[in-house]
């Protein structure tokens, strides 16, 4: 069964008092309450409740809580910055390791065998050398990362 205009408006009154209606709905409610004393009265009641809710006393956080929260959040912010820095360093180390690896091999060949040796197939030897350089670079990079992280942890503990 279709709702009457009066019933439809009554459904909107609570939201109307909350300032939560669309402009069109607001205008509709305003038009209706001019002619309907019942809805006008009810809207006023909703408004009183809404006003009461807006005026509820604000509980204050206990003394000390805010300072504790502030101190902990500052530590966390610093830790996050450390973590980001560590990640950046690690990324740099990885890139550096790869650059060293890729550059070392042609340089080594250039120095030891001249330019032509670069295009010489010699795959087996090439791969062994490549693997050796890679291992060296990664071990070096990993070691640097571990040292860095130990150093940071020590610093944090001292702080």
């Amino acid at each position, binding site marked *: 069964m279709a709702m009457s205009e009066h019933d439809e408006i009554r459904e909107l009154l609570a*939201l109307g008092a909350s300032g939560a209606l669309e402009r069109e709905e607001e205008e509709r409610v305003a038009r209706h309450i001019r002619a309907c004393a019942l809805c006008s009265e009810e809207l006023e009641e909703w408004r*009183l409740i809404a006003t009461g809710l807006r005026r*509820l006393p604000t509980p204050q*956080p*206990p003394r000390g809580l805010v300072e504790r929260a502030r101190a902990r959040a500052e530590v966390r*912010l610093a830790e996050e910055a450390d973590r980001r820095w560590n990640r950046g360093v690690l990324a740099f180390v990885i890139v550096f390791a790869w650059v060293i690896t890729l550059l070392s091999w042609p340089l080594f060949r250039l120095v030891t065998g001249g330019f032509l040796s670069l295009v010489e197939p010699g795959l087996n030897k090439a791969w062994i050398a490549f693997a050796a350089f890679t291992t060296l670079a990664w071990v070096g990079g990993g070691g640097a990362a571990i040292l860095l992280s130990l150093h940071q942890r020590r610093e944090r503990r001292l702080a």
Partner: protein
Amino acid sequence: MARDTEVARLKRGDLDALSELITRYQNRVYRFLLRIVREPAEAEDLFQQTWLRLAERIRHFDESRNFEAWLFTLARNLAIDHLRRIRPASLDEPVPGDSRGETAADRLASRERPAIEGILERERATRLGEALEALPVSYREVVTLRFEEEMKLEEIAQVVGAPLSTVKTRLRRSLEQLRIRLERKHPGMDWQ
């Protein structure tokens, strides 16, 4: 906007900006958490967790978004997770363990005398607060965000992660429930 500057500074790791934001929002965040979990000790713990979470996630905050809504979303998610973990039944109010469906506010109110004309505003606020406390959490959060935090419906929708239409429905139903409780417990009470 000053607030945006603080957020931008915080994103760069400025501790003063963090301090300013905590000072600005401390009462509102605490009030919101207390309205959701209702236990001061739990609200205090969640208050600290909210700022820790903010410190962890601020770098990922998109400054084109509304900071307040984002902050209250962090607080709300922590509070809801907490309730789900610690008191899952509290997500389906009324008060758990009460076979008659009577709420904490009902019990508190039932000890009081019937309302009389000219009652003090403080008492009215207490009763309204009790009625609010007795609402289910999904209604309570919408009411507090709308009336205490004065958020727009779109912002509330963002905080509670629900469509706008759902927020409207919850707001309307929560007010209706609130009114029914008030009228039942304090018939004839003058709210002016």
